[in-house]
C-alpha cells in the first residue's frame, strides 16, 4: 500500500510505503523495502523525514509513557510521543522540558534526531544535552541502550543523527522544576541590527529565554526582542486554547509583500505598546501552534526556511550581504527569527547548534530563483565558517553539507544500512537542486 507523506514546507507530496507500528516495534531488518526513513510528525521543513517511493516508518502510534520519576525529575516515553502531549502531562506536575523548539507538534524522536534548540541555548545547550539515555533499534544489532556511559559513540551519533543511526524507540529525558504554567515576558522594540545584537549581549537578569523577531521588509529593520522566564507566581494566565485549523490550502497570492508587510507592522506596533506580560507557556514558546496548519497559508507552492548559524563576530557582515542578495532577487523573508547560541557544546556529532548567531528566514517557493538565491547565501555563510540546518533544509548540496558538518566522516560509520532519506541521498550523492553557473 502506498500513502502520500509531506514535510512542513509543503514542497511536495510523495508516495511512500509506510509501516505503522501501533504499540511496539522490535525488528527493522525484516522489512520489505530497500530502505526506510523514520517519520515522526513531519515538522521538519524539507526532506530529512522523506524517502520518496520507498519505505517509511511512521512512529505516530508509538506514544506510550514508560516511566515518570518525580524525585529524579525524569520521564521515559516512546519516541513517537508529541511534545505537546508530554507537556500536557508534566506541566501540571510542576515540570518542564529543558529545551523546547518553536512548536510542540514535534515527536520526541524527531527532537533528538534533529538535536533541536530553543530560546535558552545560551544557558543550557540543545535538546540532546538533556537526554539521559535512549533505546535504539538497529537493523544489524537489534535493540541497544545508548547513553553517555553505554554505547556512547552511537549515542553521540544518534543525537542530531537525522534518524539514520537506527530507530529511536524511547528516551529518558531530564526535566526541570517549574512553579506553574505561566511565563513572565517582556519585550523591547528595536530599530536597526546593532541595537538588537546589543540586547543579546546584555545579561538578561533572570530571564532565561531570549529571542528576536525581525521585519526584514521594514526600511530600518524593525525588531522585537523578547525575554521570558518561568513565572514564580501561581496565578492563572489563560487556559490552553485548542488550536484552530486553516483546513484549506490558501491561494499562492495570499501571502505577498503587502499582506506580510501589513502583518509585520501590526506585530511591531502591538509589541511596542505591550512591553511586559504574563503568558501561558504555549503562547510564549509555541505561538504558531494556535493555527495548527499555518504552513498552508503559503499556498500550493509551499515554502522554504533558510536557517544558518555563523560565529558572532561575522554575523553582521553576513547579514548585510544576505540582505543585499535578497534585494537583488526581490525576495525578502516573510518571517525572520534571530537567536544566539551559547558556548555549551552539543553532544551530537552532527548537531547543528554551535556558538554564534542563528537566523531563520521563511520564503515562499518561487522556484529556481529562490534556489539560486539560497546558493548565493550558502557561499557567504560557509565562507564565514557557518553551517546550514538540515531540519529546515530542502536543497543544500553535498559541499555545503560537508562544510557545515566537519564530523561527517566519523558519523558515516554509524549509519544504519536499512535507513535512508531524500535528504541523505541529496547531500551524499551530490545531486544539486540547481547547477552552479
Amino acid at each position, binding site marked *: *500500500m502506498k500513502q502520500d507523506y509531506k514535510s512542513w514546507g509543503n514542497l511536495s507530496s510523495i508516495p511512500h510505503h509506510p509501516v505503522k507500528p*501501533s*504499540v511496539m516495534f522490535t525488528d527493522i531488518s525484516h522489512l520489505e523495502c530497500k530502505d526506510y526513513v523514520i517519520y515522526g510528525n513531519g515538522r521538519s521543513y524539507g526532506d530529512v523525514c522523506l524517502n520518496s517511493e520507498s519505505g517509511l516508518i511512521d512512529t505516530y*502510534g508509538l506514544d506510550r*509513557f*514508560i*516511566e515518570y520519576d518525580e524525585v529524579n525529575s525524569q520521564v521515559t516515553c516512546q519516541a513517537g510521543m508529541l511534545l505537546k502531549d508530554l507537556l500536557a*502531562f508534566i506541566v501540571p506536575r510542576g515540570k518542564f522540558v529543558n529545551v523546547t523548539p518553536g512548536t510542540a507538534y514535534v515527536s520526541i524522536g524527531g527532537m533528538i534526531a534533529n538535536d533541536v534548540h530553543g530560546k535558552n541555548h545560551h544557558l543550557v545547550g540543545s535538546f540532546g544535552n538533556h537526554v539521559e539515555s535512549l533505546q535504539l533499534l538497529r537493523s544489524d544489532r537489534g535493540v541497544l541502550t545508548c547513553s553517555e556511559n553505554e554505547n556512547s559513540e552511537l549515542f553521540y551519533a544518534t543525537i542530531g543523527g537525522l534518524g539514520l543511526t537506527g530507530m529511536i524507540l524511547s528516551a529518558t529525558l531530564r526535566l526541570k522544576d517549574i512553579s506553574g504554567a505561566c511565563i513572565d515576558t517582556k519585550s523591547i522594540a528595536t530599530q536597526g541590527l546593532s541595537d538588537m545584537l546589543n540586547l543579546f549581549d546584555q545579561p538578561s537578569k533572570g530571564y532565561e529565554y531570549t529571542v528576536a523577531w525581525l521585519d526584514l521588509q521594514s526600511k530600518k529593520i524593525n525588531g522585537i526582542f523578547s525575554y521570558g522566564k518561568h513565572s514564580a507566581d501561581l496565578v492563572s494566565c489563560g487556559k490552553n486554547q485548542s488550536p484552530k485549523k486553516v483546513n484549506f490550502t490558501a491561494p499562492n497570492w495570499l501571502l505577498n509583500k503587502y499582506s506580510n508587510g501589513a502583518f509585520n507592522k501590526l506585530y511591531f506596533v502591538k509589541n511596542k505598546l505591550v512591553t511586559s506580560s504574563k503568558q501561558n507557556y504555549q503562547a510564549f514558546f509555541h505561538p504558531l501552534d494556535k493555527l495548527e496548519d499555518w504552513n498552508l497559508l503559503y499556498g500550493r507552492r509551499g515554502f522554504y526556511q533558510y536557517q544558518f548559524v555563523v560565529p558572532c563576530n561575522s554575523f553582521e557582515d553576513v547579514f548585510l550581504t544576505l540582505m543585499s542578495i535578497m534585494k537583488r532577487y526581490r525576495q525578502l523573508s516573510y518571517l525572520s527569527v534571530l537567536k544566539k547560541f551559547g558556548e555549551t557544546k552539543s553532544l551530537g556529532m552532527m548537531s547543528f547548534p554551535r556558538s554564534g548567531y542563528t537566523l531563520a528566514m521563511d520564503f515562499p517557493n518561487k522556484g529556481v530563483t529562490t534556489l539560486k538565491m539560497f546558493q548565493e547565501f550558502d557561499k557567504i555563510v560557509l565562507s564565514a565558517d557557518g553551517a546550514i540546518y538540515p531540519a529546515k533544509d530542502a536543497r543544500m548540496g553535498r559541499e555545503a553539507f560537508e562544510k557545515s558538518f566537519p564530523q561527517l566522516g566519523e558519523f558515516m560509520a554509524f549509519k544504519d544500512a536499512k535507513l535512508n532519506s531524500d535528504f541523505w541521498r541529496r547531500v551524499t550523492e551530490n545531486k544539486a537542486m540547481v547547477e552552479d553557473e
Partner: protein
Amino acid sequence: MNNLVVLGATSAIAEQVARLYAKPEKHILLVARNENTMSIIANDLQVRGAAKVDTLMYDFSNLEQVDKLVEDIDSTMESIDVLLVAYGTLPNQVECQKNIQLTQDEIKLNYLSIVSVLTGLAPKMVQQGTGTIAVISSVAGDRGRKSNYVYGSAKGALTIFLQGLRNALSDKGVHVLTIKPGFVDTPMTSDFKKGLLWVQPEKIAKDICNAIRVQKDVIFTPWYWRWIMLVIKLIPEKIFKKMNL
C-alpha cells in the same frame, strides 16, 4: 464512575478512552488477547495517573469460556461503572465471499462473541442497578453494502441486540450506549486510503466519554455520520442495489 472495564483493550479507540479515564481514583481492568501489547498499555495508563490498572488475557473468539471470563471480571472488579466493548475485526469482504469458514469466524467474533459476553455480564450490572454498557458498533451496520456486508451485518445485528438490551435494562438503572463510528484512522483500517472524512481515535474517544457522561443512547461519531447515514438509508433499494458503495 471510577471502575472501567475495557474488552478489547488494545484497540486504538479503547486505549484512547482508557487514557481519558487514567486519573487518580480510577480502577481500570483491561481485557485483551495479546499480553505484551496489553502490558505496555497498562503501564502507560498507570504512569498517566490511574490508581490501579489490572489486565486479563482473553481471546474473544473463544466462546467456550465466556463463563470463566465473567467470573474473572467479577472477582477483579467489585463493581463496574463503565463496561466498554471495543473488540472486533474488519474482514476483507472479497475473501469472505470465497471462504465460508472466514465468514463464520467474522460473524462469530463481531456478533456472537459480544452477545455472549454481554449476556454474561448484564446480570452483574442489573444487580448493581447502575452503570453504563458502551459498545462499539459501526455505521456499516446501518445498511448492507457490497464492500463490507459481512462486517456490516454483524454490526447491524449487534445494533439491534443493543436496542433490545437497552429496552430491557432501562428500568434497571443500567445505561446502554451504542457507538457508531465512521471512518477512524486506526491499525484496523491501516490499508485504506484516507480522505477528508477520516478522523483520529482521540476524537472518537472524546465523543464516547461525553456520551457516557450525559447518558446518550446512540451516538454517531463524528456527528456528521448521522446525516450521511440518513441519506444513505433513504436511497430506494432499486437504485441502491446498482450503486458502488
